[in-house]
């Protein structure tokens, strides 16, 4: 089955970074590695925009009254923070950067199945970004990232249509990336790379891609219905015209709950890679961890009702959704305990990527279990729409997905750029992010139970000390997130050249030089053993 072997031209040997320096060779490249870098730059820009909005929110909450922002400004700040962070950073972050870069390398392929489609999805992402920046420039929107009707369709005076267009467009970028991954994983695996030998990073991206393809269109339709109602008066959500506002919530959450699994599943894939590389040992329970990714994708589709326990949904539906929300937590529990078991009797190195992985596991456990608290109907009746919920989803999305994103950045940076960074600074950044994060969001659990509603710029004076703690934590977090930008960019110039396998990790991506050549593999690899085959027993000397 293997094709005739073509002699390697010199150009093939050259790293993908040096295969063309012109702007045109970057902006029109169909090389999955270059597109990954284009995504890395654009999502970092949007991470900065979202972080600015978060800084404004935390600054405003230092005092009980509206001193820094007006109420109007605060409403627009948290809406832009939500929309930009969810759709323009979190959802594309790990799949579009590391999925694009690593999936072909990990399964032994030359590129994704549809390289031109991959470039098209980046341009669609940029187009969506332009719409968001335009909305920001002309004054933002004040409906919250959830765009609930009838507020968004009749009473909002912000620019709902342009933000709906932005999210609609960026949704298609996700669908096309998901489609590309599914087809690549099915049709382009190297000989010998059976499903049982796939790296867990690829398994989790496969599950994510299925959700991306099946859930995102529902959000697209919900946005079309909002536009139809605002422009043509087609009152599908307007109670006076026979519509039902709950229908929008159902459509929105039918997408948005699977969307939180789109954000966390890739992070779980990254952590599986980091934990095995840290422990220099096979993953504990490969089959369970791989199957739990698929289980999360499956059950994730039938739990969306737990966002609407107090929204006027029938109590019996709420009981069913509450039970299913317990079931969806089981695969996550399996993953966490299997990671912990992997570290047992390992040969654990404490380099920066592995500190991020351990940070992820700790914060994700707290996030997941507080999610179970929220799934308890009676508890949700008290803490729904309070800062308790804000803390819960930040523990999973920021404590989990963003920490894993930084872990992946620190793990594969030598492979992507061919340069090593300063490990001491990496450890400092990991510790600072963990501390800053806990200081920012743990007080919000307490505040939420005290009855502090979310999206409020004003609060009773007795809550001020908790808000100030949280704002202090946010400033540490701000600095901690800026640190990697400094020493990683610094490593581009000053960093020592990275060997092919700096962490002595197992995986096809570590068998090619860093940075990898344009066509990934000189000779198509053949896979013989199982994944993470760390049989070699040598005890590594301490770095």
């Amino acid at each position, binding site marked *: 089955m293997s094709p005739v072997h073509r002699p390697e031209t010199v150009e093939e040997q050259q790293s993908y970074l040096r295969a063309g320096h012109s702007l045109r060779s970057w902006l029109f490249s169909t090389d999955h590695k270059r597109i990954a870098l284009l995504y890395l730059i654009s999502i970092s820009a949007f991470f900065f925009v979202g972080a600015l909005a978060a800084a404004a929110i935390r600054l405003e909450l230092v005092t009980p009254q509206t001193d820094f922002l007006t109420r109007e400004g*605060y409403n627009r700040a948290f809406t832009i923070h939500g929309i930009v962070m969810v759709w323009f950073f979190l959802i594309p972050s790990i799949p579009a950067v590391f999925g694009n870069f690593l999936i072909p390398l990990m399964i032994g392929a030359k590129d994704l199945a549809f390289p031109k489609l991959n470039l098209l999805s980046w341009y669609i992402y940029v187009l969506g970004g332009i719409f968001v920046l335009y909305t920001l420039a002309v004054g933002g929107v004040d409906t*919250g990232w959830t765009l609930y009707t009838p507020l968004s369709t009749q009473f909002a005076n912000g620019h709902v249509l342009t933000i709906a267009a932005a999210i609609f467009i960026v949704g298609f970028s996700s669908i096309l990336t998901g489609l590309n991954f599914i087809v690549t994983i099915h049709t382009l695996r190297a000989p010998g790379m059976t499903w049982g030998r796939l790296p867990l990073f690829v398994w989790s991206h496969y599950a994510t891609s299925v959700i991306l393809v099946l859930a995102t269109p529902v959000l697209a339709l919900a946005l079309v219905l909002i536009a139809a109602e605002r422009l043509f008066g087609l009152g599908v959500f307007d109670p006076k015209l026979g519509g039902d506002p709950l229908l929008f919530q159902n459509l929105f959450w039918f997408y948005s709950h699977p969307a939180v699994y789109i954000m966390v599943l890739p992070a779980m894939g990254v952590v599986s890679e980091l934990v095995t590389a840290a422990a220099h040992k096979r993953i504990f329970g490969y089959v369970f961890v791989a199957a739990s990714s698929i289980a999360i994708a499956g059950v994730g589709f039938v739990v969306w009702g737990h966002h609407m326990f107090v929204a006027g949904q029938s109590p019996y539906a709420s009981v069913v959704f509450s039970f299913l929300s317990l079931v969806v937590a089981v695969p996550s529990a399996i993953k966490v305990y299997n990671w912990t078991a992997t570290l047992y009797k390992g040969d654990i190195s404490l380099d920066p990527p592995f500190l991020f992985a351990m940070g992820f596991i700790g914060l994700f456990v707290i996030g997941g279990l507080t999610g179970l608290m929220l799934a308890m109907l009676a508890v949700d009746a008290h803490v729904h729409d309070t800062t308790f919920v804000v803390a819960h989803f930040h523990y999973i999305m920021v404590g989990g997905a963003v920490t894993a994103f930084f872990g992946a950045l620190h793990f594969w940076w030598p492979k992507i750029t061919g340069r090593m960074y300063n490990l001491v600074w990496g450890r400092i950044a990991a510790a600072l992010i963990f501390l800053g994060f806990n200081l920012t969001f743990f007080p919000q659990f307490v505040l939420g139970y005290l009855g502090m509603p979310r999206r409020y710029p004003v609060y009773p004076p007795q809550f001020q000390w908790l808000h100030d703690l949280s704002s202090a934590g946010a400033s540490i977090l701000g600095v901690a997130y800026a640190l990697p930008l400094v020493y990683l960019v610094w490593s581009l110039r000053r960093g020592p050249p990275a060997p092919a396998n700096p962490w002595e990790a197992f995986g096809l991506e570590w068998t090619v030089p860093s940075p990898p050549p344009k066509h990934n593999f000189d000779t198509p690899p053949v896979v013989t053993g199982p994944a993470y085959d760390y049989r070699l027993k040598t005890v590594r*000397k301490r770095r």
Partner: protein
Amino acid sequence: MNPFWPERASVYAGHIDLLMWAFTGVVALLAGPVFLLILWFAIKYRRGQAADREHVIDQSMWIEVSWAVIPFVLTVGFFVYAAWIFVGLQRAPADALTIDVVAKQWMWKFQHPEGQREIDDLHVPVDQPVKLVMTSQDVIHSLYLPALRIKQDVLPGRYTSLWFKADRPGTYRVICSQFCGLDHSVMGGRFIVMRQADYARWLATSQVDASLAGQGKALYARLGCGGCHDARSAVRAPSLVGLAGQATPLQDGRVVTADAQYLRDSVMAPNRDVAAGYPAAMPTYANLIGEDQVTALVAYLQSLAPARSGAAS
């Protein structure tokens, strides 16, 4: 006021706190080992550290199934208890004091049955079940009483309800917890639980206009509903005396009980559920009257039910 725990004004709130504490215990039970083991392994099996790394097993069906099932079983008990309380919360006792709530962009209007009307603040008697029947005039709001640990979204075009029994007098907070636009954060007030005597005195002194049903009766006359619905009118229209609460057959064969929602919809959207045997000729009053006036009309129709108020008008 304990800085870590909210004040409690009802027995129900105590149950919730108990459930919360117990579940926090379970969270510690499930999360604790993860934190400790990771730290311990990182130290004991540190790279280059001499340690026993022999006969490592890398999968075991029983261990993995156990730590999937045990957390699930631990949490299912809490789910049943929490669901039990929540479903119990949905049905108010029959003798509950009914207060009608209308939420409007950025204020709450509470309407006591005897006619007292108050804005943003809510006075309730202690140790007596109180049922709030709520609707919104514009967007979705949510009535949140943190001291009682309950909240319920308030939807336009629909009645949602919430009931409670406060057992500790005091002044607590009324909050809107569903984002509803510009002044969402200032849309709230005081939730004042008073002893029976104080409540009666407050009722007497507070600004009283005719009882809700009384207002409904005046509105019924002003809008000329009698022109069609009175017994001696020439127009074929269903009689409203004793309609409230009765099973009403509809034109498309369904039979619905004439509850507050049906009565409200018949006024605001008559063509939706047309009574059997009558032409769908009633005009809509949606643009003539507001939600609080419909609430008054519905109260008046409910007061016409022969069972309770004898020979009404």
